[in-house]
């Protein structure tokens, strides 16, 4: 063993986003025998986005349960398993398939605790991914977080970085409520430093990814990365944007959003999902209600157009906010 390796182990390791998720699953499965994973193509194939790669060899087919293509059946089985003592993590290949499983999420998992007067808890995670940018067209590219955020009883988590992906997934698995864990298909091959070993990021805590004083950009998932890129261009023009990454949509870290807005007095709410009735509307309304007197300009939304995601490469990027759109909107806001 070389001398350098005998020193204290590095606290972090560079990982891809999908590896970081896999790391969280592996550690939680080692820690708690009640944790199982279920989904389509998750065993030998390692998952459509290689999140579960290696888990079959480590834990065997009873804890890494590859299923037939039956979204309703799989999610429902997870609800029943969670109600009776397991901590299932379901992988739904695309969030667009959630429609097939929606009854079990909305009418069952979300409401069991409430409807049963507190007798039940449903500690399950439904991991899935959404977003455009790979030419997968309208049925494989949506951003549907607003659907889930609207349902009392669900928690909604959308990590942007590998470290947050690992920490939030760990917290989601240990959480006693049903958690909808939304990944973005373009994030899987992004890299970042990830804490080695147990790493928890509490649900409901936003993170200021970049400090600034000219305006606040509230965003989540892949648009955190786009906002950070836009912020570099804005910095070059002397505009320092503060980037607030919500990380969890439900529970929402209102304090983090409001304290940033009270500092910058201007806010751009940014997301990929369709603008109409999007979660950005909730954020903008919350700011207007709770921090109106701190604002120097109306809250502004920048979000996806009200259209299904088109196929062609040159069309696809026209319907979701790009870096130049963010720069432009930010400049207009501070003008």
């Amino acid at each position: 063993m070389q001398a350098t390796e005998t020193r204290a182990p590095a606290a972090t390791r560079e990982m891809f986003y999908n590896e970081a998720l896999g790391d969280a699953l592996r550690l939680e499965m080692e820690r708690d025998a009640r944790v199982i994973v279920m989904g389509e193509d998750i065993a030998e194939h390692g998952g459509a986005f290689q999140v579960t790669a290696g888990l079959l060899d480590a834990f065997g087919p009873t804890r890494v349960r590859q299923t037939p293509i039956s979204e309703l059946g799989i999610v429902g089985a997870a609800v029943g398993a969670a109600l009776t003592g397991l901590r299932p993590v379901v992988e739904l290949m695309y969030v667009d398939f959630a429609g097939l499983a929606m009854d079990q999420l909305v009418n069952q998992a979300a409401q069991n605790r409430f409807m049963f007067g507190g007798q039940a808890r449903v500690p399950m995670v439904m991991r899935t991914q959404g977003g455009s940018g790979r030419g997968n067209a309208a049925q494989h590219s949506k951003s549907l977080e607003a659907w889930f955020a609207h349902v009392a009883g669900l928690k909604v988590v959308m990590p942007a970085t590998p470290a947050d992906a690992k920490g939030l997934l760990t917290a989601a698995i240990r959480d006693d409520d049903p958690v909808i864990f939304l990944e973005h298909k373009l994030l899987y091959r992004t890299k970042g430093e990830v804490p080695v070993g147990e790493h928890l990021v509490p649900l409901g805590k936003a993170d200021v990814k970049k400090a600034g004083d000219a305006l606040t950009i509230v965003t989540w998932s892949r648009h955190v990365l786009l906002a950070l890129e836009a912020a570099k261009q804005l910095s070059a023009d002397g505009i320092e944007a503060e980037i607030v990454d919500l990380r969890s949509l439900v529970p929402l870290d209102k304090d983090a959003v409001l304290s940033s807005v009270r500092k910058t007095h201007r806010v751009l709410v940014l997301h990929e999902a369709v603008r109409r009735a999007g979660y950005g509307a909730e954020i903008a309304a919350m700011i207007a209600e709770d921090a109106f007197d701190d604002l120097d300009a109306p809250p502004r939304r920048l979000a996806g157009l009200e259209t299904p995601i088109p196929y062609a490469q040159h069309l696809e990027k026209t319907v979701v906010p790009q870096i130049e759109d963010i720069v432009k909107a930010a400049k207009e806001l501070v003008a």
Partner: protein
Amino acid sequence: MEKAIALDLYRVMRRIRDFEERSTVLFGEGKVWGTIHSYAGEEAIAAGVCAHLRDDDWITSTHRGHGHCIAKRADLGKMYAELLGRETGYCRGRGGSMHIADTSKGNLGANGIVGGGIPIATGAALTAKQLGTDQVAVSFFGDGAANQGGFHESANLAALWKLPVIYVCEVNQYAESLPVERGFPIKDISTRAAGYGMPGVRVNGLDVRAVYEAAGELVARARRGEGPSLLVAEAYRHEGHYYGDPRKYQTKDEIEGWKAKYDPLVEARTWMVSDELATEAELDAIDAEVAREAKRAVAFAEASPLATPITLPGDVYASY
């Protein structure tokens, strides 16, 4: 059949019938809010199946769920309290008739969504399999639910994984207002089991002996790790789909004639007496006891405080 078992089956059926009659009266008096769905006519199914279940076995139930709940040994006082919106109700007034659950007895809830409990029971059976216990799960559902996709997906999954779940399809002749022959292109729903590679058994759901016998084999099979099965029990729903249903899809002759002809309690009394398992007097005594117990349960509910206001986020989330 042993006398004690026969009498217990009868007592459970009577409890269910009594509950349905009494809750209908309470509804008529305006004390029950919302809607209720009577299980009268189908008592033999819940009683015959649940007689084989332990408190740590699981069931999922339906919008017509009072019978399953009672057969799984629920506390009647807490059931009435729930219907009356009281704090002492099973769901503290948050759920009502369509969502009564009693997790202490393995009842994972009535369900307002037709077929909604089927995937959940399948998941409960997965827990048993995963933890290596000999618990079983039973999913009760109506003929209408057998046409929902969740039934197909769950049955397939359970058979693939040999899960200890028994799917109990209660054919009460109507999916809400749709007669069973207009909802199924087949005469015998149990034949669907073959498509999943599991046994399918069809029984007379008016005869508690037949249900008890068939369910006993299927439950034992599931406990032995031999996998899922489908039990199809045919009966007749005495009341409408819901309390107040105008029943335009039925004739008066059918309702009155069939109700008299197809009554599982009358049927049970007849064979219990003729097989000398019970005397008319013994059965009458059970009826009277059940009525006394029910009156006490209603009194408990009526004396209970109204459900407390909703507390957020604690009523909705375990942690927030």
